[in-house]
Structure formats: structure tokens, C-alpha cells
């Protein structure tokens, strides 16, 4: 990379550091303290852990859109994945480079399988009263899937396999349905009645876990096999 | 139809045909032709009705708010009728002429669509009741004439189109700025007899002068005031009916008419004098008159010579306006009509020579008078009118302009008039001499025969009729509703509160 580019970059980064540093150091005590309102809100939220309460009650709309973002990423991945079209059953592209064929990994994966599923379930369940929740659990599931794949086993390509396709959608679809249903009862969007709130949240989290796991795995799986054109 | 909406009807009578014609397929010739003619006749009728009503003193208008603080306002007042009447009548004949001229040419739907759009915007210019509406239609006119100028799609035509745009868009920008400045100063500016800027404090007079300069610069482009006239001679590559439109019916006239509006109905003639704005205008006009005539002398291409003659002739209007006093005003206004009638005649004839004999250059015209007597007679009448031979229309204009100059205490303008008349004679008489007194030397470059007539009837009728008008406007100048009487009516209103 050329000299001028480096100089400008360094200058920019120093400038940014000064700006941010100044901002951080001159910070004053803010006029609002949401933590207080939050503490008041928790009892009506139906969950005990504040972060989960924020994610799925107070700012659940953000979470809805966040899942939509994830879905968009997966959709684009799938779109770029199958040049032939969604329903021409394309043979699964086995990723030549990323398959590690050692008996160790193969057997280890088999042993890890139940353990990781258990971890995921635990994380999901823990989310209600301590750090944890759908995304973490989903990430673990995805990791499991990746191990599975890297160890040379096959996973149906996501664009063609109906069930995985549905599983992919289900998380967002369920969340959307749960969010909208309240409108039918003349309540605001996402305003779940207190008595059901906890139940609904757990349900959503569960579906989301699976869906997020499959989404992440889909993102991994649908990367094209690396072909070095220059070789 | 109720009379309040009358201006709207006048506008619609060419706007709707424009839209319909655009949608017509190329092949439906009969329908398109009848639509054109029907609309043109209808418009003449509507304008006549409107003029009649205005003469009785009833003032009809259409108004709604476009953007906050700026109204869309169409209004029929005497001056509007003056211009609307001219372009309505001339449009009728130009339409007839164009139908004959474009027989079998490609892209006729496009042509006639923009043709009608162009006249619709001219009507808008005539009828607009405030500066912003005027600006609106003035720009629309630019847009709708561009496709006509480049209609042939040749390199030359496209080049001419580029020149045309460069000038008119630039002018439009100046006009927009001028209007915006005035609008910012006093809000929405309606056209009113004696103007509406009288009661502005002395302190903002400099701004008013700047605004006047911007407005005249913007309008001067279309009115082809030297040094903004460059586009006009270029644009003569367009088909003959378009030249007629540019030179007599729509574009140049819109510029001149705009100057009239600005001087009389925005600033007010006496306020303009107090601002010392009239003398510069007089000088520019005089320079343009002489320069145009001088350049015309050296042109061999017939249409090009006519174009420079337009540059010179149109400035008579600006000249008359800039002469303080009712007589000068009458001279200017009446010339708005007379120049239109005479110049359109000349362009029809030039087109006929080109279409029938393939003659474009004056040096090829020898003996054309025998081959095409009617056309040549019409041309001669137009030419004599331009020179100002009594009792033709041109004479009336120049007579009033001369008296106006004396009234305004500018005798030197008389000199300008005499000199330019001499120049007119100097570049028109040789043409007539070739037409009538020279024997035909070479065969016509590209001759077409049309049975017993010297040329197609579509092409022959318009020049003959307008030539008759040229005579009539001079002979019958004292009858009611003659251009002269109408101009006097307007002048009376402009000076006597």
C-alpha cells in the first residue's frame, strides 16, 4: 500500500482517537437514568433477567428487526449460492478445502454432539434469569453444525431442502406472528398480556434458537468453494 | 362554458390535442389532420369570444395556489387578447401550412404533438396574469420548441438545437433569478396596468434596476436583442413551419411580449422612466435594428436573410415600448401584430420556393415570379410591408413609431427608423428584382409539380391569406378590432389611470 494512503489513514485515526478520547473524558452525568425505569418495569415484564427483559419486552421491536437483518443476510447468501435456481436440486457442494478427515475429529464430533445440544438448551433456559438466551444457544448449535460439516458429513443444501428452509424461516415467522397477534386484540404491537408474556417469550426464544442456529450454519455452508483463479 | 373559465378553455384547446396527438399512431393521418385543424379553428373562435368579452370590459381569470406564496393565474386582459389573437390566427394558417409541408415526412405525431404543445405554451404566455405563471409558460415554450428545432435529426439540426438551448436556458436562468428577486421583494407580482412597483421605497431602487436588467436579459434572448440574437439565424435549419412559429407566432414574440409586460404591467412605464430604464432599452433596440439589417444585407441564403431581418424588425417593438408616450406605445404594440403577419408570409413563401423548386439561395430565384406568381406576389407584399411602403401594415407601425419618437423627444430615433427602412429596401428589393425582372437562367434545383396549381394548395393558401391581411391591416387600420384600434385601446389604459 502506498505512502500517502498510510499517512492519511494514520492522521485520520489519530484525529478520531483525539475526538473520541475528548468526548469520553469530558462526559458528565446524564439527566436520564433508564436503569431506574427498568427496575420498575421488570416485575411487569414476565421475565426476571433485565437483559432478556430489554431484548424481548422493552425493546423487543429492535430484536424483531435484528432477526430480520439476520434473515436478509441468509437470503442473500442463498441467492448467491445457487446460480441454477432454488428448485433445481443442485448437488451439495462439498467444500473440498475445509473437510478435515481425521478419525479424531470424526469421533470427537460424535461425542460432542449430545454435549453441545445440552449446552444450547441450558443457555436457552438460563436466559430467563441470568446471562444467556436465544442467540448464544443458537450460536452453539451452529458451531455444532459446522463441526459436523467440517468433519466431512453432509448437510442438505439449504435452498433445496424444504425442512431446513422452513426451520430457517420459522424463527422470524413465529416472532412476527407473536408480535402482530396483539394488534388483533386492540393492543399495541408486541404488547403481550402479562399473564402469557413469560410463556410467549420462552416459546419465541426456543424457536429462535433453532432458527438462528440454522441461519448461522446456512451462512457458513453457503460460502462458495474457494477456487484460486490465479493458480 | 362560463366565462370565468374562458382562459382555461383557450389553453386547453391546444393542450388536449397535444396530448391526444402524442398518443396517436403515426399512420392515422386523417384523424390527426382533422384534430389539428379543428383545434386551431376552435381556438380562434374562443379567442374571438374572449376578446369580445374583454372589449365589453368583463375581466375573466383562473387562479389557484401553486406553492405557498405563488399563485397560478390566467387572466384575459386587452394585452393578453392582442397576443393571443395574433398567435391563434397565425397558428391556424401555420397548421394548414405544416400539414402540407410535412406530407409523407416521418415522426409526424411527434411533430404535431410538440407543435400543439408549443402553441399551448404561447397561449399560456399570453394569458398569464402574474410573473411566475409567465415564467412557467415561457420555459415550457423553450422545452416544446426544442424537439421542433431538432426535428430533422441531422447533425446540423442537433447543433442548432444545442445553440438554441444554450441561449434559452441561460436566458431562462436570468429570468428566473430576476423574477425570484422581485418576488422576494414584494411577493406575488400580478400584471396590472400602470405597474405595481410604484410604492417601493427609494432605498431598494438599485435592486429594482438589477432585477430589470435580469428580466430584460432573460427576455431579450427570445426577443433576439443584440448581442443575444445568435440562436435565431442558426435555428433556420428547422422546417419552414417551425421557422414561422419561431419568428412570427411564438418564440420571438413571447420574448417581445414579455418585455412589454415587464415595462408596462410590472414596473409601469412612468416608474420605469423614473428609474432611468427606458433610455438603455431604446439604445439596445436601435442597435439591434441597425445590426440586424446590416447583417441581412450579406446573406445569400433566403431564410438566413429573413432571420436577420426578424432580428431587426422585432426590435421595433422594444423600441416603441421604450419611447415614453402613448403614440410610441401604440407603434410598438401594433408592430407586435404587423411584424408577425408580414414575417409569417415571407417564411411561408420561402418555404414554398424551397419545397416546390428546391430553391434555398437568393441567387437561384431568378425568374421564379413567372413560375410561382401567387407565392411571389405574396412575398412581394410582405417585403414591401417590411420596408414600410404605404398603405401596408408596416407603414402604420413605422408612422406611429416615428411620431412616438418625436413625442418622446428623441428625434435621433427617427434617423434610426429611416436608416433601417433604407436597409430593408436594400436587402428586399434585390430579391423582388430577381423574382420579377430576371429571366430564369438555370433549371430549378429540385422541382415538383402539383397539377394546375403552382404548388400544393395546403402550401399556397396560407401565404395568400396572410398577404391579404398585410394589406388589410394597413388599409382598414381605422375600423374597430383592427390591430391599430386595439393597440390604441391598450395604450389608453396604460397611460390614463
Amino acid at each position, binding site marked *: 500500500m502506498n505512502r500517502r494512503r498510510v499517512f492519511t489513514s494514520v492522521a485520520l485515526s489519530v484525529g478520531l482517537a483525539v475526538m473520541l478520547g475528548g*468526548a469520553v473524558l469530558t462526559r458528565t452525568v446524564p439527566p436520564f437514568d433508564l436503569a431506574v425505569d427498568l427496575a420498575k418495569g421488570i416485575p411487569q415484564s414476565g421475565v426476571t433477567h433485565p437483559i432478556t427483559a430489554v431484548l424481548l419486552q422493552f425493546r423487543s421491536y429492535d430484536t424483531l428487526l435484528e432477526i430480520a437483518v439476520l434473515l436478509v443476510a441468509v437470503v442473500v447468501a*442463498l*441467492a*448467491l449460492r445457487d446460480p441454477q435456481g432454488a428448485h433445481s436440486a443442485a448437488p451439495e457442494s462439498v467444500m473440498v478445502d475445509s473437510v478435515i478427515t481425521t478419525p479424531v475429529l470424526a469421533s470427537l464430533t460424535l461425542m460432542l454432539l449430545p454435549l453441545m445440544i445440552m449446552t444450547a438448551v441450558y443457555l436457552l433456559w438460563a436466559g430467563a434469569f441470568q446471562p444467556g438466551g436465544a442467540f448464544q444457544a443458537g450460536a452453539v448449535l451452529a458451531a455444532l453444525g459446522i463441526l459436523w460439516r467440517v468433519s466431512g458429513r453432509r448437510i442438505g443444501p439449504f435452498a433445496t431442502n424444504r425442512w431446513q428452509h422452513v426451520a430457517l424461516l420459522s424463527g422470524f415467522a413465529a416472532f412476527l406472528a407473536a*408480535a402482530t397477534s396483539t394488534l388483533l386484540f386492540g393492543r399495541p404491537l408486541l*404488547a*403481550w398480556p402479562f399473564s402469557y408474556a413469560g410463556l410467549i417469550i420462552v416459546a419465541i426464544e426456543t424457536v429462535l434458537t433453532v432458527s438462528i442456529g440454522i441461519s448461522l450454519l446456512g451462512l457458513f455452508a453457503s460460502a462458495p468453494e474457494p477456487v484460486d483463479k490465479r493458480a | 362554458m362560463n366565462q370565468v373559465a374562458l382562459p382555461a378553455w383557450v389553453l386547453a384547446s391546444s393542450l388536449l390535442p397535444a396530448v391526444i396527438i402524442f398518443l396517436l399512431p403515426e399512420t392515422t393521418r386523417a384523424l390527426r389532420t382533422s384534430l389539428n385543424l379543428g383545434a386551431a379553428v376552435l381556438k380562434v373562435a374562443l379567442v374571438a369570444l374572449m376578446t369580445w368579452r374583454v372589449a365589453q370590459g368583463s375581466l375573466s381569470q383562473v387562479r389557484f395556489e401553486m406553492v405557498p406564496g405563488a399563485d397560478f393565474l390566467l387572466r384575459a386582459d386587452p394585452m393578453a387578447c392582442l397576443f393571443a389573437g395574433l398567435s391563434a390566427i397565425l397558428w391556424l394558417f401555420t397548421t394548414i401550412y405544416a400539414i402540407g409541408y410535412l406530407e409523407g415526412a416521418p415522426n409526424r405525431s411527434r411533430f404535431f404533438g410538440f407543435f400543439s404543445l408549443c402553441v399551448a405554451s404561447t397561449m399560456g404566455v399570453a394569458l398569464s396574469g402574474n410573473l*411566475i405563471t409567465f415564467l412557467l409558460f415561457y420555459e415550457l415554450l423553450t422545452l416544446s420548441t426544442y424537439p421542433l428545432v431538432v426535428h430533422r435529426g441531422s447533425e446540423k439540426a442537433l447543433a442548432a438545437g*444545442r445553440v438554441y438551448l444554450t441561449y434559452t436556458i441561460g436566458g431562462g436562468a436570468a429570468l*428566473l433569478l430576476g423574477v425570484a428577486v422581485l418576488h422576494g421583494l414584494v411577493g406575488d407580482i400580478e400584471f396590472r396596468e400602470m405597474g405595481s412597483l410604484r410604492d417601493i421605497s427609494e432605498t431598494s431602487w438599485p435592486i429594482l434596476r438589477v432585477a430589470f436588467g435580469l428580466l430584460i436579459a432573460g427576455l431579450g434572448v427570445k426577443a433576439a436583442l443584440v448581442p443575444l440574437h445568435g440562436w435565431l439565424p442558426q435555428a433556420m435549419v428547422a422546417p419552414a413551419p417551425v421557422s414561422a412559429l419561431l419568428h412570427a407566432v411564438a418564440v420571438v414574440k413571447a420574448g417581445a411580449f414579455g418585455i412589454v409586460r415587464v415595462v408596462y404591467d410590472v414596473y409601469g412605464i412612468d416608474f420605469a422612466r423614473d428609474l432611468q430604464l427606458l433610455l438603455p432599452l431604446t439604445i439596445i433596440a436601435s442597435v439591434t435594428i441597425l445590426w440586424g439589417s446590416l447583417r441581412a444585407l450579406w446573406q445569400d441564403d433566403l431564410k438566413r436573410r429573413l432571420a436577420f431581418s426578424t432580428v431587426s424588425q422585432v426590435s421595433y417593438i422594444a423600441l416603441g415600448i421604450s419611447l415614453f408616450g402613448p403614440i410610441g406605445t401604440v407603434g410598438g404594440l401594433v408592430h407586435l401584430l404587423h411584424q408577425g403577419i408580414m414575417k409569417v408570409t415571407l417564411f411561408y413563401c420561402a418555404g414554398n420556393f424551397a419545397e416546390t423548386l428546391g430553391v434555398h439561395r437568393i441567387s437561384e430565384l431568378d425568374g421564379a415570379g413567372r413560375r410561382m406568381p401567387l407565392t411571389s406576389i405574396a412575398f412581394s407584399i410582405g417585403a414591401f410591408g417590411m420596408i414600410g411602403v404605404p398603405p401596408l401594415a408596416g407603414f402604420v407601425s413605422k408612422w406611429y413609431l416615428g411620431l412616438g419618437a418625436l413625442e418622446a423627444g428623441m428625434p435621433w430615433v427617427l434617423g434610426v427608423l429611416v436608416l433601417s427602412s433604407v436597409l430593408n429596401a436594400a436587402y428586399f428589393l434585390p430579391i423582388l428584382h430577381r423574382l420579377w425582372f430576371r429571366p430564369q437562367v438555370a433549371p430549378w434545383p429540385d422541382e415538383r409539380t402539383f397539377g394546375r396549381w403552382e404548388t400544393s394548395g395546403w402550401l399556397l393558401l396560407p401565404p395568400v391569406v396572410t398577404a391579404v391581411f398585410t394589406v388589410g391591416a394597413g388599409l382598414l387600420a381605422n375600423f374597430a378590432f383592427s390591430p391599430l384600434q386595439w393597440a390604441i385601446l391598450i395604450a389608453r389604459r396604460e397611460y390614463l389611470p
Partner: protein
Amino acid sequence: MTEPLVGATLLPLAIVVPLLWAVLTLVRPRRRPTWLVLPGLVSWLAICAGLWWQTSRHGVLTHVLGAWPEPLGIALRADGLGSTMALLTSVIGSACALYRLWTPMDADTLGAQHWFWPLFFMFGAALNAVWLAADLFNMYVGLELLGLSAVGLVAISGGANALAAALRYLLAALLGSLAYLLGVALLYAAYGSLALSSIAAVATPNTITYVALALITAGLCLKTALFPLHAWLPPAHAVSLSPVSALMSALVVKASFVMLLRIMMDVGVSIVTPSLAQGLGALGAGAIAWGGWQALRHADLKMLVAHSTVAQIGYLFVGMALLLGGSAPELAWDGLMLQLVAHALAKSAMFLAAGTLIAAVGSYRVADLAGVSRHTPMALFAFGLAGVSLMGLPPSGGFSAKWLLLQSALASGQWHWAVALIGGGALTAGYIFRVLGASFKQGTGDTFESTPFGWDVVALLLALSSIVVGVVATGPLAVLRIGAPLAGATS
């Protein structure tokens, strides 16, 4: 009281319904799911129209999500600007969708096209989410959803060029939204709230606020492709499918601009000094000049139109300068709003028309348009009408917008903006007539592809509305003033 409640229910619907159709079209991806898409478009249009009408009758509408009041919870808020943009989005979105439905699919044989519709509806939902957002962090999520779906739409246009454009666009978008997020983090640290309204009430000029606003402005200007941060825009808009280009140029850049406008008017107005406003305006003027110049010299038709977008964005920032640093902010607001609407309509019409022309002559080059005026007059006419509005020649929305901005500039005695506005118009005329002139040229070999009639209709309707909106601007502007952050604005 019931009616405003009904109206308020329309806010979440405006976001949820497109999301729902995104899911439906995702269940079984098809290239042309006409009978699935049409109901979606109709309901979308109906909801946004209703929302606009409700806003015009009842003033600003608020929907408190989850019944958790701000600032703890998130609210959706529809002021005049928000609901107008939502309506505009549904109209232009439906137009582009119809154009897409009329596209003969053998034209693009790419399997990726199956995934157009989910992304399209996600995109629509994201736009509405941004228009109606009232919470700084929620705006961030909405902006990311918008950015990613837009990148996706570019990427599936196919070909390596599309990939490169999408990558460039994605990097710019990510950097921009991260800068925005940094700014939001600082604002939260300084004020302890994310609700725009509550911060606006207590905003004070101190270092952290300045830095936050600087970061937010920089990030959003990058996303709005304000000169000189515009490099990513032209390729991204030029390689896309024509309806996608139309959506991007008409709406996406507006989303980040509207966010910036809201933050500036609510939080920044007491903090931004006139000189800073002048600086933004200067960049705008630079955009007008540079974009116009580039459009004049590009041989590729869609690149020309895309650069015209760069130039038109400049007008928005000139308007913002007049809004923040001028003495006639009401005029500036009206002009700015009208420019937003008129440009959205005109530019979408122009991109669709350009797509038709390109399909007709089978080439992207302006020079190859010779003779097309005879073959596809309607598309050319639409292009011309849209051009009239972009040039700011009367009668058109562009003219009325420019007129109002001009009035504001003169009233503030800031003549330099008047010069920029009028000069920009001349440049625009230059490149528009470059296209028209080329198409009027007598064609050598008139061999043209025939194009769907529907294409012409859609483009022409959009172009006509961009003209009409300028002649009857008073009504829409009255709605756009509802809840406007101006002194003496009706709320």
C-alpha cells in the same frame, strides 16, 4: 378519539405487512409470484395512504410499542414527513414492483432472481421502519436492515460488476452505520436516553455532544453519498436491475438523509452553528457541480442518471444549510420537503425509463440511442418529463422546490446558494438534453427490441406525478409541515 387510535394502529402495520410478505415470498421463492405479490402491494399502498390521510387529519400519530412508554420502550411516530415518505415509498415501491412483474424473465436467466421478492419486501419494511422511527438505536437497526437488503438487491443483479458494486456499497454502508452507532453511544452516555424527543428537550452544547453529532453527521453523509463521500453510489446504482436502481436512487439515500435531518433539527438545532451549516451547504454545492459534471461526461446512460442522483443530493444539503443557517427556515423546509418528494418521483421514473430505453436499443451507451425516439416515444417522453423536474424547469416539482429554496436563499441574503441552485439547473439541462438530443438523432439501422407496454405506463405515471406535484404543491406541503421541528409548526 377512536379514529386516531385506528390511525395509530396503521403505524406498525406499515412495517409488519411488508415483513409478512417477505416471509410469504420466502416460503417458496419464485421468479414471478404475481398473484402472491399483488395483494401485498395493494395492502401496503392502502395502509400507507390511510396513514397519510390520518396524519393529515389528526396531526402527529404515535404508537407505543409493547405499551412500554418512552424512553424505556420504543415508539413509532408518524409526523407529516414520516407518513409522506411512507406513502411515497409504497407508491414508488409498487411502481417498481409492477415494472419487475412485467419484465420478461428470459431477460435474466439468473437463479438469484428467485430471491428478489423477499429482499424487496424486507427493503420496503426497512424504509418504513426508518421513516417512522423515533428512537436513535431503533433507527440504527432499521438503517442496517435497509442497507443489507439494498446490498442484497444489488448483489443479485448478477455478474462480477454487481458483486464489486455490492461490496463497495456494503463497506461504505457498514462504516457509515458504525460511525452513527458511535455517535448514538456517546449521546446515550451523555443523556442516558435513546428517545429522540427526550434528548431534544435536554440537549446542551458540550464536547461529547459535538463529537457525537460530528460522528452521526459523517456516518449519515457517507450513507447519503454526499460529495465527496459519494464514490460508492454511481456503480451500485448503475449495475442494478432498473427497478432496483430506481428504488435506491429515489428512496435509500433519502432514508439516511431524513435521519440526519431529524437529528439535526431536534438535537442539533441549538448546537449547530451557522458556519457548520454553511459547510454542509458547501459540500452540497460541490455535489451539484461534481455530479453534474460527471453526468455530462459519462458514456453509460445509467451512470449518467446515477451521477445525477449525486448532484440532486447536493440540493438537499443546500436546503439543510438554509434550514439551519438561514433566516427563512419555513421556506427552506418547504423547498427541502418538495425536493425530497419531487426527486424521488422523477428519479425513479428516469431510471425506469432508462431501463426501457436500454432494453430497446440493447446497449448502455448514450450514443447508441439514435432513432429510439421513434421506436419507444413513451419511455423517452417519461425520461424527458422526469428530466424537466430534475432540471427544475417549470412546471414541475423540481421547479417549485428550487423556487422555494431560492426564495429562502434570497430572503436570508445568501446569494451564493441562489447561484448554486441556478447553475446546477443549467448543468442538469446539459446532461438531460445530451440524452434527448442523442435520441432525436436520425437512426442509421432502426433495429430495436420491443419492450412491454406496462413499462412505459409505470414510468410515465411516475414522471407525470413528479410534474403535477409541483403545480399542486400547497396541499402536500401543508401535510409535510405537520410536526415539523420549526417555530410555529402545526403539530
